[in-house]
């Protein structure tokens, strides 16, 4: 793989990706330290799509999130401190101490609504896009859901609604293959999103590989398309939530795979550096392998300096 230098791949993208990763690692350290009363769903491994979405958004665009939202909130605001202050329920937090973790939104940063209830944000995003249409706003609503939430009827109903009214919505399906501790095949049949989209005549794209530069390019193309066509788009993003561990139990003497769902990621330590897994599943590993090592290290160092005040 050809190495790029930072300016080739967009310094902002690289920096934001590292900020979202390192910001989460800082939150994780504070979490392990017992600093938070609110339950937090970290999104380690989800950084590439979040940063790409954020960088694709134009000023009037709006983002609608779910319970796992830290990556988008960090990408939008750039402020790890305000995120942590919100988790500490301080008035100076990103939500004024009113929203905590699972409902954290921030209209000023383009995060218009965040729901802790599976599927709940899709109808709301539909209504927001309809409002934009009637007010002739030049903007897109981007709503984030997952392979668990798409099991709710609201997903299907909202696709119908968005297509019917010709709404500019990008539906991001973050597919990490898990809902709580259940893998997809442990809870349901496969639902082929591409085929499902075809049933409505909705455009469907798949993104995987965590290449931030390519993600931004693809999403910008999709945004242009939805603006042009007045049509919704489904973007199926295959990703891995990092932070799993193995637990030895009576039944599993060799150790049982425990996926990360919420709470502190106990096996992840900021001292080990920003890369969690040496594979394509880790967007930071992908970034590192694209960049010259010195450059990568310099970016990391800068970010860590900014964040040092937030560590426990």
């Amino acid at each position, binding site marked *: 793989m050809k190495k790029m230098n930072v300016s080739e791949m967009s310094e902002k993208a690289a920096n934001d990706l590292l900020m979202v990763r390192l910001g989460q690692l800082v939150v994780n350290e504070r979490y392990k330290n017992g600093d938070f009363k609110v339950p937090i769903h970290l999104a380690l491994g989800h950084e590439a799509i979040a940063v790409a979405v954020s960088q694709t958004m134009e000023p009037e665009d*709006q983002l609608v999130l779910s319970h796992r939202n830290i990556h988008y909130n960090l990408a939008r605001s750039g402020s790890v401190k305000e995120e942590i202050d919100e988790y500490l329920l301080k008035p100076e937090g990103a939500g004024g101490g*009113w*929203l905590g973790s699972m*409902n954290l939104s921030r*209209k000023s940063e383009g995060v*218009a*609504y965040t*729901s*802790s*209830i599976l599927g*709940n944000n*899709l*109808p*709301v*995003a*539909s*209504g*927001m*896009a*309809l*409002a*934009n249409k*009637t*007010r002739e706003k030049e903007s897109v609503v981007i709503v984030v859901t997952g392979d668990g939430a798409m099991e709710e*009827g*609201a997903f299907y*109903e*909202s696709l*119908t*609604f968005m297509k*019917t*009214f010709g709404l500019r919505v990008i539906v991001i399906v973050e597919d990490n293959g898990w809902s709580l501790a259940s893998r997809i095949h442990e809870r349901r049949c496969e639902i082929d999103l591409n085929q499902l989209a075809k049933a409505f005549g909705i455009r469907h794209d798949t993104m995987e590989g965590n290449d931030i530069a390519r993600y931004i390019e693809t999403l910008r193309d999709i945004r242009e398309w939805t603006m042009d066509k007045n049509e919704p788009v489904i973007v199926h993003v295959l990703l891995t939530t990092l932070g799993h561990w193995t637990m030895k139990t009576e039944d599993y003497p060799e150790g049982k795979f425990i996926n990360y769902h919420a709470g502190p990621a106990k096996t992840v330590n900021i001292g080990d550096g920003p890369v969690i897994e040496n594979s394509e599943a880790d967007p930071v590993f992908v970034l590192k392998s694209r960049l010259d090592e010195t450059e990568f290290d310099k970016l990391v160092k800068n970010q860590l300096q900014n964040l040092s005040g937030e560590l426990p």
Partner: protein
Amino acid sequence: MNYVGFVNQELKKALKDKKGVIVFGQNVGTGSCVSGLSRGIEKETGCRVLNTQNSENTLVGAGFGMMRNGVSSIYIMKQLDFLLLGIDQLVNTYNYIRVFKPSASFTILAVVVDNGYQGMQSSLNNLADFCSIARIPGYAITNRRDAEKIIGAHLVSPGFRIIGLSQRLFGRELIDFEQVISCEADGGWLQYTDGADVTIACFNFSIPQGRGLIEALKDKGKEASLFSINSSSPVEWSPIIANACQTGAIVVIDDIKSVNSPSVDLVARARGEEKIRTITHITRDFSSLDWLRPNADELVLNNKNIIHQALK
């Protein structure tokens, strides 16, 4: 003029200058326009009328989404029981939106199918439960006076509420009263007559029963104070209690099918007053499952017994 004709006229009056308001729901713009309820709105007011799919959950969410983006809307529902499918949005999305004190309006105007014979699944008249679960303002419209008051004050004003209409009353001649003696500012209750012998408080859609009781009292040479309690939640009862302290007798009529109802709160309040000698609480009979059968579904009063008990 009949009830639905009058409500339709009041809707059009209230929407006259409200350009940009969206009126949506199943069949609002086709056929009979929900038995005449939404007839002529698009033509005569300039509001946009959007006919929608059958997806109540998504439609309620869409109303909140529009609200979040500053667009006011009215969701007209053919049957209140369909709203059962939208309660997640009613509760969870409203609990979020209200924190931000929205400047836009969202009103659900639901027809309460109380005309009997539909069967057990389409005869839900429990407006109070929908309101109780997320502490939502709710109002029942029963006559010319409360229709004017409630539609005028609430149809398009910042915030969210549910307004219930009675299907049973739809085709009937509009109930009217000569005057409104007093009323709660929000239309939570209205007083229509002032009599020295009995205080009558009618909850939910029981004003016809209250009128019948007044006639029966007149036959005995007695005069009553008549109140309609339009709010689906307890309101400031003091003026009603004060009236009952003067008459010494209160008859509380409630035709709702809920277990818990605001009328219990009024009774509790009345029980604390020594000057109120008799408290008669009339509710439906749930001692058998007969209330689930197709039937006239109307609370029938034994006026003779009620009068006997109230005046003893």
